[in-house]
């Protein structure tokens, strides 16, 4: 599950920073069938979370109502230099995470 996550590399203290996340995932709905007519099992990312230096700042429960290759854009206040850790898990239990660092000055 590759992901593309964009956060500004540096920010002023107190600045609201934009976070953009795009995860490569089919978000299989469970309503489709394969070539021989078998139902393709539902497999969607059901939980996504973002932690800023260990503190959760954003969390989302997703469902099959979210497009394939889910895109999420949200905001957080730059409080201190450190890491933003993004993690997600799908119905098959496959977990993945990504870490990006931000430098906060001022």
């Amino acid at each position, binding site marked *: 599950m590759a992901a593309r996550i964009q956060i500004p590399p540096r920010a002023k203290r107190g600045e609201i920073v934009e976070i953009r996340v795009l995860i490569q995932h089919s978000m299989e709905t469970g309503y489709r069938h394969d070539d021989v007519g078998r139902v393709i099992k539902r497999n969607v990312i059901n939980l996504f979370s973002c932690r800023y230096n260990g503190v959760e*700042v954003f969390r989302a429960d997703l469902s099959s109502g979210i497009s394939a290759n*889910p895109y999420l*854009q*949200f905001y957080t206040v730059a409080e201190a230099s450190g890491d933003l850790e993004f993690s997600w898990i799908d119905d098959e239990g496959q977990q993945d995470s990504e870490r990006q660092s931000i430098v906060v000055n001022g």
Partner: protein
Amino acid sequence: MKRRDFLAGAAGALALPGAALAQVDPLDPLVWVVTNGAPVKKGKVKLVLPQLADNGNSVPIRITVDSPMTEADHVKSIHLYSERNPVRNMANFYLGPRAGKAEIDSRVRLAGSQRVTAVAKLSDGSFWYDAAAVVVTLSACLDES
């Protein structure tokens, strides 16, 4: 009955379901889970969707809540509901004062033209919503069609 009265009545009858739909049903079990029966008022939340979506598999959506996002007054969660999708509760987002700004952008799947509703829970325990109608030309497929 005069023709004019009949037309006025017919127009009223047509307008009524629309008015009834333009509210969040607090008894809807999916909403009840979140609100516990509390009233859901219109306002504060702004839901932006295209009026016409060519492809229901990926419809851009933006939810904004008018909130200062401070420790004392912030948005706790935003819940997204669809009228016609097989899974009606499309997504739940949990925010806090650390978010700085209550705005979320994403892309959703829509199985047909419908109204999408966003309900926001604020830190003072009040609930607010907004709804937007979308016409979807090509539905997100439910089968192999």
